């Protein structure tokens, strides 16, 4: 069976201006969304207390709020989580030392009002200091991954490939973040993990294309009438297209299963990966290679180094 016909020949690079336009708009929109709407940061980063409870009978949000008001938590964020019996309550930090006990006060107040029929499902408390540290660690992780990947691609290919790969990553990351800003889904530590995985995955796709370009460039040098590089690159993308789409498809299958069956806790994680895989697949076709080609002549590369690179296994 074949989904992509073997004689497929799409002029991807010929449409790079349209693609760049779409990508540019998406990235810009994402950045604007991030600035003006912002991310709905989870308590991992803001600090605070999260209490997830299950009631014997579905309560009304108003009743839950009424139970919490006398304790001074009337302004808590109270929402359904998954199904109507499950309620999630989020409270901000106050005095740092007493904050760790907020969850117990909340649970006691609920049990008092709903006659001990409230079950603790999950309690998370992140102190202000820890919130700052986790934010820092998250930013460091993303930056570090990008630098390490840049180094690896530069080592295996050459500088302009690394620039293309990294810009594609910036593109993917911005759009995933933009998707979180526009949907208002909670952005927490597991989402950062998902973003890092998107970075790794998107690059995986890009590298497969780059590998083929490198291989064909090497073959090209031996020909009497060599093709120009954009043609080679376009052929490489076409030849690997089938693999790119099939792999993305199998990954999407498992991600959909994770998104729909994996439960609420893993929802944001699966969502980030879903968006990331779609965007990453697109960017490895339309973004990474065109940028790599545009960079030709802008980065230094002596002929010997290129030949040596192409001869690498």
């Amino acid at each position: 069976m074949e989904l992509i016909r073997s004689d497929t020949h799409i002029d991807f690079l010929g449409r790079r201006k349209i693609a760049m336009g779409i990508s540019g708009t998406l990235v810009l929109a994402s950045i604007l969304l991030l600035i003006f709407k912002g991310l709905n940061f989870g308590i991992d980063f803001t600090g605070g207390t999260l209490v997830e409870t299950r009631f014997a009978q579905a309560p009304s949000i108003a009743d839950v709020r009424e139970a919490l008001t006398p304790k001074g938590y009337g302004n808590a964020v109270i929402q359904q989580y998954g199904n109507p019996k499950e309620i999630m309550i989020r409270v901000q930090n106050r005095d740092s030392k007493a904050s760790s006990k907020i969850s117990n006060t909340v649970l006691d107040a609920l049990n008092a009002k709903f006659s001990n029929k409230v079950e603790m499902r999950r309690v998370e408390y992140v102190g202000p200091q820890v919130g700052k540290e986790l934010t820092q660690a998250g930013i460091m992780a993303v930056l570090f991954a990008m630098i390490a990947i840049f180094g690896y691609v530069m080592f295996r290919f050459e500088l302009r490939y690394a620039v293309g790969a990294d810009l594609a990553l910036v593109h993917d990351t911005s759009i995933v973040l933009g998707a979180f800003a526009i949907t208002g889904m909670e952005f927490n530590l597991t989402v950062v993990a998902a973003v890092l995985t998107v970075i790794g995955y998107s690059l995986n796709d890009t590298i497969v294309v780059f590998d083929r370009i490198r291989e064909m460039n090497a073959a090209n040098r031996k020909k009497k009438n060599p093709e120009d590089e954009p043609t080679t690159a376009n052929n490489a993308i076409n030849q690997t297209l089938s693999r790119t789409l099939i792999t993305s498809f199998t990954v999407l299958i498992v991600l959909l299963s994770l998104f729909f069956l994996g439960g609420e806790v893993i929802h944001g994680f699966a969502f980030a990966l879903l968006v990331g895989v779609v965007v990453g697949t697109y960017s490895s076709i339309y973004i990474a290679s065109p940028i790599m080609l545009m960079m030709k002549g802008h980065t230094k590369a002596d002929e010997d180094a290129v030949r040596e690179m192409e001869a690498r296994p």
Partner: protein
Amino acid sequence: MHAYPRWKLWLILIVFAVSVMGALPNFMNVPTWWPSMLSKKMNLGLDLKGGIHLVLDVEVDKAVAHSVAEDVDSVRRSLREKRIAYSSLENDGRTITAVIRNAGDTAAAAKLLSDSMHDFTMQQAGNKLVFTLKDSQAKDIKKFAVEQAIEVVRNRIDALGTTEPVIAKQGDHRILVQIPGYENTARAKSLIGRTAELEFKLVDEKGDLDKALAGDVPPDDEIVYGDPEKRGDKVYRQPYLVKKRTELSGNEVSDARVSIDSRYNEYAVTLKFNNRGAERFDRLTSQHVGDRFAIILEGVVKSAPVIRERISGGSAQITGNFTPQEARDLAIVLRAGALPAPVNIVEERSIGPSLGQDSINKGTSSTIYGFIAVVVFMLVYYRLFGLVADIALIFNLVLIVAAMSMIGATLSLPGIAGIVLTVGMAVDANVLIFERIREELRNGRTPLAAVDAGFDRAFVTIVDSNVTTLIAAVVLFQFGSGPVKGFAVTLTIGLLASMFTAITVTRAIIALSLGRRKRIERLSI
């Protein structure tokens, strides 16, 4: 391709046998002769098992300040012994400043103190002596405080009687506490957070309490309050004027048990002193018959009984309207010893048992459905070759489970997601190889040559593309915490396993099945 090396085949078979054996303990009870290396089960993370996860921060600066305050006492004593008058003696937690009254005594004081204060550096300005705690010393005090706090917390958690709690140092001054399968977060938190500082101080019977309350506290005294009690509709706390000096502390307690106070028939905690404590208590009670001593727990006077006679048995009783649970917890913390510095809970991630089970169920079902979908797709798309890839995928899953069990890795919910993701990504290597084979076939190669070329050419690409994902996984492991780390671990193991199964195992199966035949006209790909 025709002669597939024997040793490679054996290697694959051995790896397969070992991983099946290593994975089995997770699904059934293995017989006793099973190799112990392969008998371990995967650890479930707290997010799957349910339990309490706390990160404590030890206020190490307070431990330093406490130690400096003790040194202030010794400065005071040495100056008094030598009858050197001082006009002020202050400390700010790190430095001690003594102002000597007669400038003529300064040299003598400097000599006296510099001999005894080894942990400080001394500076002299006129008749002012400033002692600053050495950095190395402060570091030692902090380190010791954290180690001691870990010991104390461990003793207290052990008293809860749960199985396999984890208490470990995290960073410089933090402690990680994990109590699997325990739900009562309120009790665990209050038990861990109590300083349990117990002091016995003499009540200053000659001092004027009213004057002291007005602000005129005698220099060696301090005011301490009792438990709040209701008087009419007002809450009242009884003040006591006590000597600053601690006569006996929790360090001298060797045992603490719940008892019933026979007079009021209420719960109490009976303390037993160690030898040194018993001696001191003996001396204290013999010298101060008729006076009161205050039993101060965590800064609150629990009771202030009158010493009626000399007590030489070496035990005392704390009362104070305890519920049975309160008395039991107090006995636990007193037995476990006092925390050298206050600890604060800075992070909590506790999971109730029902959510843990839900996560296991949902994680399992999403893995199963994702797996089936991928298997079916590969079979339809690549036919017999797809079947081979599917066999490799099953092998891959077995290998992941076995590897995680053998290295004792912890499976978290994001970890399950990592496995699901690996299922999707593991077939990538096979897709790369199979697409390449199809391409070589189209270019007119014979089936066998196409298979060879497909495996050879795709190999580099597979390595290159996996390394980048591995980089992301390693970074995650470095910066991530808890469950996220679990994701990094399963993703890494999954990728490594998939490189082995998708390349080596599929090649072996294909080579063996093709190798027997003389000529191959078509490939089922």
